[in-house]
């Protein structure tokens, strides 16, 4: 089988490597993968087509159901499903489909009337308790929604208003249901739901009667029509658009769950806060208590402190006195040993000794000098000419000039000389001489 499919693929791909196709876009679907899936159709036939994500960036406009488009691409086979399909490389619009055109016209008209104005949007109730669902009681949609609501275990009161969601008369039923629930006071919020389908399938929700019933509904309306990529005019006028019916159910449940969580958190914070405050107060009390002492104990402490200080003071004083008296003693002793009396005595003694030494010295000096003098006098006596004369010698002086004569040559015969004797003198006339 795989081989056959593979051969078919080769055949088709070989035969249609490049095609240009014209048709209307329907069943447009863009899953998370980002690839764009849709069916091209004309009055006679349909062709499945895909734009791979990498090619979508060449799309210059938002691809919508009902658009008449020209596609360039090639034919390929999707083997897992045994389907052939058009792989679109490029695509451009070619006029609008009839329904799409009607859609655009109504949308434009209601928009001009201000029906889509955000100021008309009512906020969802903070606490949605009773939920009205306008949908078909049969089929997957209500089942999925109830599954969501059940799974989340929230206590909710759900009131279903069964309606036909497509075909003749569907729009009127839907509008009537919305009006009824809005006025009944039975519900806090209304979900208008329908599963996915073609633009024709969803058409009731593009009818003016439905759109206007949503607009005038006093209760907030959530639209949950088709798949996430499907847009109806009801979506524009609703107070909130849910991507799918299940998502609408999720929104409501989540709102309540969030609230419960919020209250849980507040409850916890409340207890933590009071605990914190009590802890702070307790700590402060303990701190104060610690600082608060019995005054008697404080007095005792002070007393003890004073005594200690006093003791230390006395000890210090005694120590200082002791030390100073020691120093005084030492100083006194030093002073006594250095007394001027003693010094005076010493000086006097010294003076005495010096005086006596002076006297003795002088006497000695005198004696020595006397002795010297005697000795010298003796010696002088010895050499005195008088002494020599006494021994018979005489001294001869040549007259008239009294020149001492030591040599006979000094004297000529006839000269007069004076001869000094030990006793008396003679004046002589030289008569002869010998040399």
């Amino acid at each position, binding site marked *: 089988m795989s081989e056959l499919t593979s051969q078919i693929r080769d055949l088709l791909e070989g035969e249609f490597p490049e095609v240009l196709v014209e048709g209307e876009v329907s069943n447009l679907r863009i899953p998370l993968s980002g690839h764009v899936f849709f069916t091209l159709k004309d009055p006679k036939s349909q062709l499945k087509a895909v734009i791979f994500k990498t090619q979508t960036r060449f799309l210059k406009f938002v691809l919508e159901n009902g658009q008449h488009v020209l596609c360039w691409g090639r034919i390929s086979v999707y083997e897992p499903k045994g389907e052939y399909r058009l792989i679109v490389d490029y695509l451009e619009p070619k006029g609008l489909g009839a329904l799409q055109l009607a859609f655009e016209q109504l949308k434009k008209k209601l928009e001009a009337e201000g029906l889509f104005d955000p100021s008309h949007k009512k906020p969802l109730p*903070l606490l949605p308790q009773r939920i009205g669902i306008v949908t078909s009681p049969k*089929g997957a949609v209500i089942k999925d929604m109830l599954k969501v609501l059940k799974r989340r275990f929230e206590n909710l009161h759900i009131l279903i208003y069964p309606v036909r969601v497509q075909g003749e008369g569907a729009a009127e039923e839907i509008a009537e249901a919305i009006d009824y629930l809005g006025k009944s006071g039975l519900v806090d919020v209304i979900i208008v739901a329908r599963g996915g389908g073609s633009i024709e399938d969803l058409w009731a929700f593009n009818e003016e009667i439905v759109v206007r019933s949503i607009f005038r509904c006093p209760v907030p309306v959530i639209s949950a029509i088709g798949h996430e990529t499907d847009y109806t005019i009801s979506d524009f006028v609703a107070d909130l658009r849910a991507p799918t019916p299940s998502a609408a159910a999720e929104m409501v449940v989540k709102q309540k769950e969030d609230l419960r969580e*919020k209250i849980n958190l507040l409850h916890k914070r*409340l207890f933590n*806060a009071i605990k914190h405050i*009590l802890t702070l107060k307790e700590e402060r009390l303990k701190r104060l208590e610690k600082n608060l002492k019995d005054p008697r104990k404080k007095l005792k402490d002070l007393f003890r402190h004073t005594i200690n200080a006093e003791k230390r003071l006395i000890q210090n004083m005694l120590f200082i006195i002791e030390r100073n008296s020691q120093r005084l003693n030492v100083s006194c002793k030093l002073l006594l040993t250095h007394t001027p009396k003693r010094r005076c005595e010493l000086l006097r003694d010294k003076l005495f000794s010096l005086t006596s030494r002076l006297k003795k010295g002088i006497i000695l000096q005198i004696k020595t000098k006397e002795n010297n003098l005697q000795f010298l006098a003796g010696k002088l006596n010895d050499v005195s000419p008088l002494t020599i004369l006494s021994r018979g010698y005489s001294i001869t002086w040549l007259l008239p000039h009294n020149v001492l004569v030591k040599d006979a040559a000094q004297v000529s015969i006839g000269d007069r000389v004076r001869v000094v004797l030990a006793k008396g003198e003679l004046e002589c006339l030289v008569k002869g001489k010998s040399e």
Partner: protein
Amino acid sequence: MASMSFEESLRQLEFIVEELEKGDLPLEEALKLFEKGVELARFCYNKLDEVKRKVEILVKEGEQLIPRPFEEEENGS
């Protein structure tokens, strides 16, 4: 308290929690606020659970629409 809306109770509870979290309140005032907070939280919980889980479908009986229990199992499963 009974006449107070859920929204108002929640708002007050938030206010009280924030006041208490500032932590500089006199003890008596703090305790008074705490008591009020506990009461408000209880009120909110009660409001949340006020409604019992119930799935009903409106059934036309003559000219009137009457809520009847919706049998989920019968529908499509």
